[in-house]
């Protein structure tokens, strides 16, 4: 009797393990590591070579929201796994090293998705930025990572969707910052949210084609593509300006049309 009972347990375990991939989410499934191409992480702050110059990356982070995968020709909404870095609909990625404190980076997107779903998907899309309601809400009562004050601007303009702060290694006085967020937002003051959409929402839709059956995914940020055709040495960057002004327009075009984010 004992032998047959043990056999039954063993068979049950094997059966459950076999069903795992079909019925349960694998621990690693849906996790997409994101790295920064050619970033030197052996020192702090991290460094990168851009347009022939060495730069320290003092800050690099961006919000990703509303993730979807395309299955059988239809877009299917998926959720992020909740953590200090993710709400079900929003994730914050941060790549720069906070030299004074450990664990200040988040370099992966963790999706509530099975291996099977990822294998069936033919594309992954998301918004670079935040939805209107979350963007302009009081950060004090929003869940992490929406209450990260280094990524928040004001109730009126909302959050920084993307923040990049660079310092030139050979000329440390020179810095370049790109702070992308909604502009032209109308409200009574900086601490009152707008009632309707801003003139320039500055959200960017990102679509990444996927290869079916490939579920072991990783993304790579390419800063050379992000800053292409801008002169980092001559400019101090673009911070919450209209996308038609100077370097801001170029940077927005790069985000919209160049492969600043691609599968690794």
């Amino acid at each position, binding site marked *: 009797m004992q032998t047959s009972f043990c056999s039954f347990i063993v068979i049950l375990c094997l059966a459950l393990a076999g069903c795992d991939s079909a019925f349960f989410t694998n621990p690693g499934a849906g996790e997409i590591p994101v790295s920064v191409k050619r970033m030197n992480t052996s020192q702090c702050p991290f460094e990168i070579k851009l347009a022939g110059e060495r730069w320290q990356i003092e800050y690099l982070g961006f919000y990703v929201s509303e993730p979807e995968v395309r299955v059988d020709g239809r877009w299917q909404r998926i959720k992020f796994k909740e953590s200090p870095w993710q709400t079900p609909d929003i994730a914050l990625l941060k790549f720069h090293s*906070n*030299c*004074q404190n450990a664990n200040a980076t988040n370099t992966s997107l963790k999706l509530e998705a099975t291996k099977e779903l990822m294998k069936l998907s033919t594309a992954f899309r998301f918004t670079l930025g935040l939805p209107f309601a979350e963007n302009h809400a009081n950060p004090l009562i929003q869940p992490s*990572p929406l209450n*990260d*004050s280094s990524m928040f*601007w004001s109730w009126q303009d909302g959050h920084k969707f993307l923040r990049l702060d660079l310092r030139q290694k050979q000329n440390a006085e020179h810095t370049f*910052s790109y702070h992308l967020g909604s502009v032209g937002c109308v409200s*009574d003051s900086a601490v009152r949210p707008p009632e309707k959409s801003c003139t320039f929402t500055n959200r960017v839709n990102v679509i990444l084609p996927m290869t079916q059956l490939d579920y072991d995914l990783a993304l790579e940020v390419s800063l050379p593509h992000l800053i292409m055709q801008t002169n980092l040495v001559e400019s101090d960057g673009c911070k919450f300006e209209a996308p038609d002004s100077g370097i801001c327009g170029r940077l927005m075009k790069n985000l919209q049309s160049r492969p600043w984010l691609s599968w690794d």
Partner: protein
Amino acid sequence: MRSSDEKPAKSAMAKLGLISAFAVLITVLASACQPQSTPYTFNLPETVPPPVVPVGNPLTEEKVRLGRRLFYDTALSVNQTQSCASCHQQQFAFAQATVHATGATGDKVSRNSMALVNVAYNSAFTWAHNGFAQIEQQLLIPLFNESPVELGITGHEDIILKRLTTHEYERLFDAAFATKTPNFDRIVKALASFVRSITSFNSPFDQYAYQGDDSALTPQQIKGMNLFFSERTECFHCHGGVNFSQSSTHTGQSLVLQPFHNTGMYNEDGQGAYPSDDQGLVRITHKQEDMGKFRAPTLRNIALSAPYMHDGSIASLAEVIEFYAQGGSEQGKSNPHKSPFVKGFALTDEEKIALEAFLNSLTDNSFLTNPAYGPPLN
């Protein structure tokens, strides 16, 4: 067979039940023997999340009461000339209206006394130290520091503890820690509890921003606030968050932020050096890029805590605004370690006055006169 198996099991269950009941009884009796601790409740607006309180030092009314008594007691200094309140005075937002502090024995403390405003929300302490996560750790500096001497307890511990064996202190320690005996662990926990209880969220800005009172700010203050939150001035980059300092956190915030910045005050050697008597965070980390980096202090009640900056070298808010408008001092603006957000800005005189008016709207008069934060009545 089955019934004989059940007997020991039942017996074990019965024993387990007896042990559990006994344990509960002991716990009840033990707690009955101890004084009742009253959990401290923060008086916060609905929209302000509570601060993080360390598990090792839960906040109680009794500890806050003892801490307040200690905070105002000169018995804590070696020569009984100074208390914590000597350098942290309520009418100045618990800062001090002098360029720098002076210790109990006359030692010059090189830095300006920091205001104690919503310290419970700090994620870093002192002007430039990345090693303190809690008030309890920071408090050891003013109590025990030998160079410079502040309260000067080191080497005089027994004498100072003996001063705290009066009938009043026995009663306060007993209520807070269930023992009449003072020691420095309990003293630090009580002081930290009182300091943690000092909160300020009732300024005209709070009434406007968090309570939705459109009339709480003047049009000039609103204009200044809009400038404060604009890319023109960049103020908000370092003075953001619940406490107008990026070195702030609360129970809903999990992410670690960078709270230290070089504002371009000095550049002694053209390579970014600050004066040797105080070079900021580099003294702790020994990393050159931390030269001249200091923590952005809270701006709440900032109008009351002059003079300004880590060395108290700027006398007025108008001069601070001018300093940032110029992108640092004449010598320091070229400092290679300077924050990218201290680039200078062009404001009209009217706009500068509006910006100052906004900073004045961060003054919380109820905080400055709250008797619960003042010296205890005998």
